């Protein structure tokens, strides 16, 4: 009897897992199918039917060239790299100062950084836009870069937490050897922060790659389109050519899929640590 109940439990478990996997995958798989279909084939077959020719890349080349996806990838990569390097440097610097030096205003400054994590940046865009505009940075790559550096304080938070677990006796023994504070930061603290840096790279990287709101609002020029705004432009002109839109969608998914498959372990850990405030 007990064994029967156990087997039934196992069945429910696997059925629900398979159903979950089905729901997660089907919306993507049908897009994948459609991306290889010709226009005629697309309108004549059900979305669940696989394409006749798996090597029909016509939609991909159309989407890639007409949608200027290369430009989108280029801009995304520039913004991504500068923001991540900047956020890592700025975040670790301020975290080092706040964690290792006791000075007047330290607590206040720490509070200011923590309080800022509560402000959802989506709410303040109305006023932030005026400030970026004041510096004549609207429609330049500096607008999103500055916003990713200045308003996303999560990196500071992760570094401060991690620094708590790095013993201060390391700093002290380096000082006995005559190392300057700068050397201690650059040679000891920064390398030891490596796991936290990986977390920041992943959390910020996914955030920047997927962000639509900021580039859409701040960089209307076509020359400055990033991957998400490039894809968004497909909506008008290709409204009746879903097979081309589907190819465009797949082009944005493939890099993420490759990154996910090769960095799985780090990605899971990154989100697990980055979110536990």
């Amino acid at each position, binding site marked *: 009897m007990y064994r029967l109940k156990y087997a039934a439990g196992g069945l429910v478990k696997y059925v629900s897992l398979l159903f979950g996997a089905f729901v997660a995958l089907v919306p993507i798989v049908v897009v994948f199918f459609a991306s290889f279909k010709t226009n005629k084939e697309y309108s004549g077959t059900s979305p669940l039917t696989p394409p006749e020719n798996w090597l029909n890349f016509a939609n991909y080349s159309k989407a890639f060239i007409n949608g200027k996806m290369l430009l989108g990838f280029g801009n995304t990569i520039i913004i991504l790299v500068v923001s991540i390097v900047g956020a890592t440097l700025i975040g670790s610097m301020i975290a080092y100062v706040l964690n290792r*030096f006791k000075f007047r205003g330290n607590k206040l400054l720490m509070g200011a950084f923590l309080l800022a994590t509560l402000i959802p940046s989506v709410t303040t865009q109305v006023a932030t*836009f005026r400030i970026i505009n004041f510096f004549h940075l609207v429609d330049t790559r500096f607008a999103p870069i500055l916003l990713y550096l200045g308003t996303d304080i999560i990196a500071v938070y992760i570094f401060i937490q991690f620094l708590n677990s790095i013993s201060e006796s390391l700093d002290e023994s380096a000082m006995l050897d005559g190392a300057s504070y700068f050397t201690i930061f650059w040679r000891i603290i920064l390398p030891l922060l490596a796991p936290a840096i990986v977390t920041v790279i992943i959390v910020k990287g996914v955030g920047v790659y997927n962000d639509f709101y900021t580039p859409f609002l701040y960089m209307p020029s076509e020359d400055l389109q990033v991957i998400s705004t490039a894809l968004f432009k497909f909506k008008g002109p290709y409204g009746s050519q879903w097979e081309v839109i589907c190819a465009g969608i797949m082009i944005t998914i493939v890099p993420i899929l490759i990154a996910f498959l090769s960095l799985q372990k780090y990605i899971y850990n990154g989100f697990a640590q980055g979110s536990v405030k």
Partner: protein
Amino acid sequence: MVFKNLSYKAQRKIIIISFSLIPVVLLFTLAYLPVFNMFKYSFTNWNGYSKSFDYVGFDNYKTIFTDPKYFSVFKVSLYYFAASFVQMAIALYFATILSFNVKFKNFFKGVLFFPYLLNGVAIGFIFLFFFRPDGTLDTILRAVGLGDFIQGWLLNPKIINVSLAGAAIWRYMGFNFIIFLGAISSIGKDIYEAAEIDGANRWHQFRHIILPSIKQIVQLNLILAISGAISAFDIPYIMTGGSNGSNTFVIQTVTTAFKYNKLGLASAMAVVLLFIVIIATMLQRLLIKEDK
């Protein structure tokens, strides 16, 4: 090196000032100044570009809470809020089963989490495709004999927010799932073993071991859900542009500010939004403190 020869006291001063200068300037100009300005603009009728504007007191706030055009968008948030409970229940369920022995564990884990990594625009398009008349969903429903339930998923104002909230669940479930899974995995194996010896079944283990030890994380995610629900933007904006009754608070704020150039009114809306999020966060801090 000149810096190295300075006394530690002098070095300390230089390091503190030089290392905090850029972060502090960025923090104040891009995080605090906008909040301050937003409050100021919310009491004006500024259009966002002219040189002069008048102070209008609480008029903008009155408009938000009395004009149904602005007030009704709060109702749409309720759909997303309800959806986040569904999302968390699903995430908790899958996290619990995958924390025990399961075949193809990594495959299921990866598949359930992957949608969270996708681009918002890609997800918007994927679901436009999914919900199209005679699209994926309709085809599947027909195939399993549920053809009678077919709706104008994105055309019927009564259904549209359910469809959009469904897409939001699909997108964000993986995030909650991976966080819950991480929390559950950190529970020691010996506790389960001890419980099994005492005759506890899986439900008992869930109820008395798993749930209490991840309670805080569930609470935190619930609070994030409140702010997430009220700041829903990407999916509805990309999929419908806010038409057919799917307008959310943030879409409304953005169009009021940038399309209709009513920056004063839009600022007041943003202030209301900020207050809701802050109250929700403080509520959570209070709840967690009481537990301790």
